[in-house]
């Protein structure tokens, strides 16, 4: 890794990271600020819930209405989805462009004329993706945690909170790995932002369909979202190591493939 390149990437991506953080902070805090109103109006809320189709409730991970009125259940149902989706889009857009932008902005001509190896370039950019995805997740988790402390009406367990946060981070990181891999295999140097966002949404759509349609449950396994477990209020909810290994393993494989491809890639401008 090259510190000069890494620090430059931090500076270059700081504003976009701050903006994404601001959006996440706003969404989580606004949603969590509604918790007490929600709890204080349980009967009206339940009335509304009964009008909703079963599929919509299943999709939101609501199996028991009582769960929804606990602070952790409310957090899991409403906020985690922001970070699952938004965090993944952020990770994918960032990683799919971090190497490729040097090509379509035609700055690779400079970058590759300086005393750097391809490995140093790759690892510096990868470190930036890892750092920024981690920071966004830390901020989201911190805001979520503080919001829970502020609005809670009774005791809550920290364990599901940490597990949810870990799954979300791993999911985001996997999308970061997918984005980086795509950027190393595309031949034409042009932005892949639309493709990146589209892919996250398609995977999310597949996951949604699999959740609300029993006959399509199996196709959910095509989507990384399926490998998380957000049912934080289910009895016995805990950290499942196979999920951690799955996310870490697939990410590692994709990072390795990207690294090997980039080291031998022809850079066209």
């Amino acid at each position, binding site marked *: 890794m*090259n510190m*000069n390149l890494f620090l*430059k990437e931090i500076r*270059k991506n700081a504003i976009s990271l701050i903006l994404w953080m601001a959006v996440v902070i706003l969404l989580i805090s606004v949603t969590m600020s509604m918790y007490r109103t929600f709890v204080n109006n349980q009967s009206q809320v339940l009335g509304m819930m009964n009008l909703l189709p079963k599929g919509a409730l299943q999709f939101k991970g609501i199996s028991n209405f009582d769960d929804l009125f606990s602070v952790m259940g409310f957090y899991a149902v409403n906020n985690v989805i922001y970070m699952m989706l938004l965090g993944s889009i952020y990770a994918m857009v960032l990683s799919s462009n971090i190497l490729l932008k040097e090509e379509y*902005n*035609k*700055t*690779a*001509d*400079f970058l*590759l*004329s*300086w*005393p*750097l*190896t*391809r490995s*140093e370039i790759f690892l510096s950019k990868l470190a930036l993706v890892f750092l920024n995805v981690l920071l966004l997740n830390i901020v989201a988790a911190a805001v979520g945690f503080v919001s829970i402390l502020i609005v809670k009406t009774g005791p809550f367990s920290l364990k599901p909170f940490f597990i949810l946060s870990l799954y979300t981070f791993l999911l985001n990181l996997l999308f970061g790995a997918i984005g980086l891999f795509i950027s190393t295999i595309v031949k034409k140097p042009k932005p892949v932002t639309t493709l990146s966002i589209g892919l996250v949404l398609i995977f999310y759509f597949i996951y949604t369909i699999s959740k609300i349609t029993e006959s399509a449950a199996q196709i959910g396994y095509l989507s990384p979202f399926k490998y998380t477990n957000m049912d934080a209020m289910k009895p016995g909810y805990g950290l499942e190591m196979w999920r951690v290994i799955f996310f870490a393993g697939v990410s590692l494989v994709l990072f390795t493939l990207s690294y090997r491809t980039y080291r*031998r890639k*022809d*850079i*066209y*401008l």
Partner: protein
Amino acid sequence: MSDTVIDITNLSKSYGRNIGIEDVSFDIKEGEVFGFIGPNGAGKSTTIRILLNLIFPSGGSARIMGMDVISETKKIKQQIGYIPSDANAYSSMTVLEFLIYCGRFYGIKAGNGRMDELSELFELDLKRKLSELSMGNRKKVAIVQSLLHSPRLLIMDEPTTGLDPLIQSRLFDLLRTENKKGMTIFFSSHILSEIQLMCKRVAIIKQGRIIKLEDIEALRSKQLKRICIWPGEQEIAEKFTISGIEGPVSRTNDTVTFMYSGDINDLVRLLAAQKIANLTVEEPSLEEIFMHYYK
């Protein structure tokens, strides 16, 4: 330390069925100013991109200062400077930030005297953002960054594009000074006049192949003549042929024109046996010699 700074042997690069370069071989000695000339798309940039490890060759090898351009690229790049043809730098940076950033890769600290000296010579506005600069000013920034670390080898790809004549002249003066101090220069261009001005030796590349590798002076002194004959009779015009004709013979209704490098006596003897209306024998310009090879 090797006396040969660049050593290219049978270098090839193909893009599927298309050939970028094929069987390119030449070497450049320490302290030489070497011209690499060819029309756009001839393979100049492809060759440079292989030297810089931007792309990988399909065959052959390239070494710089005795080191392999693929496996030892970092060591090589510590000793080379590069001026790209499209000087697209990082648009969010100011000129000063960019130069400091470049310098750090070579261990050069901000406030380095060389940076100030070069920035002054090329009249850089260090506070301007790179995105606000014209093509010419971006090129000046690229020139300064390439020379910050006083490289042993400077590779230039169309370095004068966008530069005004005054700055071009300053660049050439600076290159001469640096060359006298020992810097080797690899100068790629499609503009003959600047190659002629700066280089001692030149490689001409056409459709991916080196078609001539020679001293500029040797090229100039080639016994190449432009012969123009007014045959007078159509029959002579159609049948006229002699060994020593270089390249195509151009025939119009009145004239037969060609480049001739054979024995002039053979030509005179042949013409003496014909009935011709007129004849001119001219010394071609260097430009024409190059164009002759391009055709």
